[in-house]
């Protein structure tokens, strides 16, 4: 099966993100005091550091559900016009250079062929 099977349903980050997305106060805490918020939700040091470093690969290696990863990046960079050129998605280019390069080549090929 695919990447989604790697998620750890018991990982504190996954639990925290459910609440953060639904609560403006927690979102503000994420921006102002991520370390304290991580402590309250009992994230491991490795989880906290992966979030702090905005590193999709480390997050997913730890078991963060892939769907939450762009949402975490949004908390750092904002959401508006989250196109493939946005700052948030630059993190994916760094974390997954090969996959991202293939996708960008695909996009160029598709656009050239039309």
């Amino acid at each position: 099966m695919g990447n989604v099977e790697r998620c750890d349903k018991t990982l504190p980050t996954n639990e925290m993100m459910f609440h953060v997305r639904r609560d403006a106060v927690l979102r503000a805490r994420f921006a102002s005091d991520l370390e304290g918020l991580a402590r309250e939700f009992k994230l491991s040091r490795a989880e906290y550091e992966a979030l702090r470093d905005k590193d999709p690969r480390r997050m997913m290696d730890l078991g963060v559900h892939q769907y939450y990863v762009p949402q975490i990046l949004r908390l750092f960079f904002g959401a508006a016009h989250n196109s493939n050129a946005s700052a948030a998605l630059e993190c994916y280019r760094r974390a997954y250079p090969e996959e991202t390069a293939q996708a960008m080549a695909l996009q160029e090929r598709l656009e050239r062929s039309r």
Partner: protein
Amino acid sequence: MARVVAAMAMTHSPGLTGWFTRASREYQELALQATAEMRRRLEAARPDVLVMFSNDHLLNWPINNMPEYTVGIGEEHIGPAEWFDEWLAMEKYRVPGHAPLARWIVNEGGRRGLALSYLREMQFDDGISVPTHYLNPDAQFRLVPVTMNCTVPPIPTPERAYQVGARMRDILAAYPGDERIAVIATGGLSHEPGGPRYFWVDEAFDRWFLDLLKRGDHAALLRECTLERMEAAGSGGTAELLAWVLVLALTRGPADVLAYMPAVAWRSGTGMVVWNEMA
């Protein structure tokens, strides 16, 4: 008795509203034409209510307690959820619900061996909001949202989705009212939201899947389009096509594929489909 009068499916990629103009002008026009045609056919079918099946993106339930299906039983539905309005670049919308039908689905599902969770107040992300924007922008149709788990292991199989669809067909038909119902699947096509292949779409898979719908051979689709095949085409996202497979069970014969776009810019294979015959 109630009657299903229309069945259709469309991609709900947030790019379709949030960063629509990042795709080529050709794709923008195709998407607008196809959704306008869906709306035209919907209006011609004169439904009283849309029953919309969509993936829950971990918004309504935490990952430790994800039901297979959840029915929104509220008198009114309001979206997008606060976290998503900027992402989707959408104003808030309000759509009247159909609480009696929604509650019937939950309870009749129970009587027929189908465990359906429910929420009186449901939050909406792209899954319901994007199709609502295109198909029901003035809230002329009442809405019963049904979210499903397509992304938290264990992900249900296409066979299971089809079985639920067949049961849903019986549940809707047995509703003691004369409502005209449109069933709408949202999600897919190939994409891997947040995964290592976040920017990828699998055009070959998408065209193959749409060809299966055009053939209208349900047994062949269920035999060939396994969950493993969906996952290979984009993990955690392509399986949103389970909603399409569910709705397939309420139809008969070939589907009209109105549009297909391998839209990397929207980070999703993007398609719109309408069925002509109800089962």
